[in-house]
């Protein structure tokens, strides 16, 4: 079995030491000593390297500046308030934060088992003639524009979900479990979660596939030599070895789900309510921005929308930081 080339990010995601020395340490020789072309090259590269952090800072600055009016007006109460009334100028972000977080977690909950199962099948079980087309088809899913997902969601997924999943759930369990309480509209938190899960499966599964194929062949062979079955080899050797990478993959998917706009706007129902039931409509931060920004009039209204953008920004940063820490801890725990 030939080892597949491991992409650079797989190592980073897996928390493996890829050996980057500190930036300055690496660059100092090049731009102090060396010939002119090396120095120019080094300066150029520093420029490229800094361009993204600078861009990031510029975006944060602009968004924060634009939301200043709303921050001053509502303070921290903006995050806990459920009001959203453009007519009287009373704004709060809680229903949107709730919608974004819950729909993304729901998507992750659905996508994670499917994507990992798919990746295991493709790396451990499937013959090459079958694995290649399936992998290709999965990656093709990632290339579909999200508005197409949205249209498909409205016309195919939502009616199907409504009749085959939601109505039976609401009829049988809705009276006892608030999670499935009716009425059934079709468009709902559940529909949003399902469409997001379909959109993030390709990301999670292809990264998982990469990290699984990066598990050293010796590890697998050793497990099999000790008398492990294929199942045991996969679950007790390959998966634990790849765990940090898989967690990284999940976070990648979550990050995408948090920011997805078009498709979820079309199926989530756009109602700024906080409901326990996943059959009820909800609203996400990205959706309210896409919906209301173009026609927003009035400074406070615009500023409140910008503050929503700022909060969305903050949530993605928190999620990614948390993920990095998690990956780092798992990797460190294993080394010691």
């Amino acid at each position, binding site marked *: 079995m030939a080892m597949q080339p491991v992409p650079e990010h797989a190592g980073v995601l897996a928390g493996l030491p890829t050996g980057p020395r500190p930036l300055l340490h690496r660059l100092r020789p090049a731009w102090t000593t060396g010939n002119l072309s090396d120095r120019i090259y080094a300066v150029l590269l520093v420029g490229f390297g800094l361009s993204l952090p600078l861009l990031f800072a510029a975006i944060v600055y602009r968004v924060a500046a634009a939301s200043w009016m709303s921050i001053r007006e509502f303070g921290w109460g903006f995050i806990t308030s459920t009001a959203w009334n*453009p*007519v009287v100028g009373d704004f709060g972000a809680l229903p949107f934060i709730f919608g974004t977080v819950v729909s993304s977690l729901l998507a992750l909950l659905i996508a994670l088992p499917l994507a990992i199962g798919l990746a295991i099948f493709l790396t451990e079980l499937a013959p090459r003639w079958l694995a290649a087309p399936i992998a290709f088809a999965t990656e093709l899913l990632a290339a579909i524009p999200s508005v197409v997902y949205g249209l498909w969601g409205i016309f195919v997924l939502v009616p199907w979900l409504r009749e085959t999943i939601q109505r039976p759930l609401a009829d049988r369990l809705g009276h006892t479990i608030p999670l499935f309480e009716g009425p059934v*509209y079709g*468009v709902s938190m559940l529909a949003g979660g399902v469409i997001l899960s379909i959109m993030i499966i390709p990301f999670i599964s292809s990264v998982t596939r990469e990290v699984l194929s990066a598990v050293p062949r010796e590890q697998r062979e050793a497990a099999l030599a000790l008398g492990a079955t294929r199942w045991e080899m996969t679950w007790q050797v390959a998966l634990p070895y790849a765990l940090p990478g898989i967690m990284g993959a999940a976070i990648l998917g979550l990050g995408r789900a948090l920011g997805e706009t078009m498709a979820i706007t079309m199926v989530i129902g756009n109602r700024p309510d906080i409901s326990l039931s996943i059959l009820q409509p909800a609203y996400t931060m990205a959706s309210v921005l896409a*919906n209301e920004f*173009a026609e927003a009039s009035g400074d406070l209204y615009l500023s409140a929308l910008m503050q929503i953008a700022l909060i969305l920004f903050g949530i993605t940063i928190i999620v990614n930081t948390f993920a990095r820490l998690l990956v780092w801890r798992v990797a460190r725990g294993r080394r010691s």
Partner: protein
Amino acid sequence: MPRLLASLPVIGLAALLLPGCAEQQAAVPAAGETEALPAGAVMLTGAGATFPYPIYSRWFHTYARENPVRVNYQSIGSGGGIRQITEGTVDFGGSDAPMTDEDLERARHPLNLPTVLGAVVITYNLPGYSGTLNLDGPTLAEIFLGKITRWTDPRIARLNPDQPLPAQDLLVVHRSDGSGTTFVLSDYLARVSPEWKQRIGVGQALRWPTGLGSKGNEGVAGQLRLVPGSIGYVEQAFARQLKMPTAALWNRSGSFVAPSIEATTRAVEGIEERVGEDLDFRLSIVDSEREGAYPLASWTYLLVPRHFESCTRARALYDVISWAILDGDEHARALHYAPLPADVKQLVLRKWRESVSCGANREPMMREA
């Protein structure tokens, strides 16, 4: 190549979903981007409301065939149109709702001039119901307030004695994006229902007490098609293209009026008394008292600065719009917009001629007028 391939399904889907729109768009290349600019031609830019975009681009394109004027209108939304005219980055703006006094102050008082009329229609999905649905303002308000939840409600049945309505749950579908359509509907409901005025108010985006939000006319139409028993509102042109059923509304002169181009135009007949001496067109035309006027009518405004640096540009803009308003009725009707009545057209153009100055000496735009 991958991008091309990926876009194929979109195009296919769009063509399937919106046959009317696809046709319309194909017939109207975006203004200003087609032919090379002839020498000495004037290039004007505008931005704003999406609602008049199809008719504006058709007018500008047709006009450009005979005249050395190119107008590039970008449909970025009414809010965007007001922002751009305030910052002076465009020659003119477009907005469905009139600018507020506060906005006007900040933007150095651009003119708000109506160009064309549209209507908002109430549309629904009632399988097995073939009659015309009749509604009046208070009932409509109760529906959108979430107080009527069954089609068999006596308040609806009272208005439709001829045919029994199906025993269906009633679901409200509304726009989730900020929209002039929502503005017109809420403006009307606030006039006919004190409760609506007090609880919900008037705006392009509202705090809806009930129903599902869908993005755009197409989103509302899609949702309506999927849920039997649903009711919503879209632009008249859109409903016509998709052949959606529309409700007739009770008019203040005492009859049910089905939406039509004529009934929409009728809503502004006799408006002269209301615009007054200073010709301020920033007034609502919903709930007209005229006989046969459709209650959910609206007009869309052109936002024109009071002063142009260049007299050539000022006159070119006046020429193209006055041509469109005076001679462009056929184009408007073809796209399901309602033209202004003849005397209102004259008022609009008079206001423009009298108010706009140009050049360094602030001379009147029209020397001989």
